[in-house]
């Protein structure tokens, strides 16, 4: 099967899965909404809430997955993921600072914007910490990610505690740290959707570059790639997308790891196929994970980050082992 055929088939299958899971998300929940009630006035409020959540799930799932593909490609590291590398925490610090400074009221763009800045700084920090000459060794990168993650994490806890003392909305920050697709302000969904949409679109134009980068930066340059410019642009795109996702839904981990590797397993490593299909698969994955988050407890919801970490943690360890045994450095 050629790449084009794989892509076409994948889009049809995952597109259908997305439609089904979106419809499912409208029916699933603690309040019973019958299928024929979906369009009736009686259930309109519930359906709207669920549709907004599912929409945010699609945006965040697609964004985090594509961000994972970008980081894996540019850093040439199969274990890269915005959460593992501390990019999400960096975005979280930015977003939390903006929220606690009371800037959120200035517009739906402020918190995602601050998250974007935090994400860019975190990527830069991890990259500079991990780089040894021209290479970015796999394990050094992970270690740098761990460090940035824990520093950003402590800073977030510090922020939460200083606001505890002032008796302010710390609970929402705590909750938000675990990740949730609960939509209380429609403006955030629109802002996240626009940023993620733009980021994914740009990435689609750079799939060949991502492929070529896998053979190394200098060989890629010999094939006519403007390596430094491309890397910078893709880092910015990954930060934009991660920042938007984190600002809208908090820290949902491992999506950028689980989804792209799952898709690779079926369609192979070609980024021309991988990027669009990861976006779709990530959307389906997060919509279904959110169905679990909302329905698994008899009342209330589980933070969705708990579910993705539950799946992603063991998966990460598995990849780490495979990487050690089978990878070529």
């Amino acid at each position: 099967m050629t790449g084009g055929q794989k892509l076409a088939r994948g889009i049809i299958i995952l597109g259908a899965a997305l439609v089904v899971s979106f419809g499912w998300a409208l029916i699933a929940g603690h309040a019973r909404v019958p299928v024929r009630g979906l369009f009736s006035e009686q259930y309109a409020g519930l359906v709207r809430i669920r549709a907004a959540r599912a929409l945010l799930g699609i945006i965040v799932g697609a964004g985090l997955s594509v961000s994972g593909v970008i980081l894996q490609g540019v850093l040439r590291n199969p274990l890269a993921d915005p959460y593992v590398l501390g990019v999400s925490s960096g975005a979280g610090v930015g977003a939390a600072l903006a929220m606690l400074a009371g800037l959120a009221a200035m517009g739906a763009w402020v918190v995602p914007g601050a998250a974007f800045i935090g994400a860019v700084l975190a990527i830069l920090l991890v990259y500079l910490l991990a780089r040894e000459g021209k290479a970015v060794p796999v394990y050094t990168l992970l270690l740098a990610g761990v460090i940035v993650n824990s520093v950003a994490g402590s800073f977030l806890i510090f922020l939460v505690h200083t606001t505890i003392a002032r008796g302010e909305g710390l609970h929402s920050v705590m909750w938000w740290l675990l990740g949730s697709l609960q939509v209380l302000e429609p403006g955030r969904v629109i802002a996240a959707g626009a940023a993620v949409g733009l980021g994914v679109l740009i990435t689609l134009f750079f799939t060949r570059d991502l492929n070529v980068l896998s053979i190394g930066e200098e060989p890629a340059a010999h094939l006519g790639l403007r390596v430094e410019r491309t890397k910078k642009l893709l880092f910015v795109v990954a930060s934009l997308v991660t920042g938007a996702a984190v600002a809208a839904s908090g820290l949902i981990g491992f999506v950028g790891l689980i989804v792209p590797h799952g898709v690779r397993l079926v369609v192979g490593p070609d980024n021309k196929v991988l990027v669009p299909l990861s976006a779709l698969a990530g959307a389906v994955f997060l919509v279904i994970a959110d169905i679990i988050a909302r329905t698994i407890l008899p009342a209330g919801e589980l933070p969705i980050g708990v579910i993705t970490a539950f799946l992603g943690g063991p998966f990460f360890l598995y990849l780490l082992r495979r990487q050690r045994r089978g990878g070529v450095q």
Partner: protein
Amino acid sequence: MNALEIRDLTCGYGDEPVIRGVTLEVSRGEFLGILGPNGSGKTTLIRAVTGLLEPMGGEVLIEGADVRRLQPREIARRVACVMQDTAIAPAIGNLAFSVREIVGMGRTPYLSRTGWATDEDRRAVADAMQLAEVEHLADRAITELSGGERQRAFIAMALAQGCDTVMLDEPTNHLDIAHQIGILDLFARLNEREGTTVVGIFHDLNLAAEYCERVVLLKDGRLAESGPPAEVFTADVIRSVYGAEVIVGTSPSSGRPHVFVGRG
């Protein structure tokens, strides 16, 4: 028109020039060897020719066009490179690119951002794989190959670029003698049959003597000697460039010079 013209080139990293005023012309269809001690600027010269390094002074012309005026893609359609060891991104298990996909990357300078490979591209890839004798590996993952097989795959990738000039940066460095000869024979064939200009960095003086029509020796970023191997490879020249005592003899089969190690 010459394949390459390097005029009074000075370039390097940061403020420190590595190449200092090199002038070199490579005519079409030539098989040229570049040699010199470690750190003499051989790889830097390749980077300057392919536009990866901006010249500090002087200029580089590829087929008459100034490298600084060419887009990276345009350079990549004129000059292909084979590196001494290409570090492939680590992949989990067998999820690496196949040889066919890697060779296909050689078509990058011809493809638009969003377009798929055309029949012409696929033909170029098939021809390149045949020339580099990696057809039987086409569907294997690049990470599963031996060093020699992998190097052939990257040679096929460079051939798929369809360039009139190929630059080699010690392409046989880590390989055993059979692979070394096999790969250099391949480029010799290419040079004879297709008229491809081959510019190769060599570590091994004898391989260079055997395959190159002309060799140039670099020392401290300057051109020290240039000419046919038989003229350049003399004990005096080797001593002054490498600082090593050698005895130069002649190969019984090709009549070309052969360098023997002279133990102190």
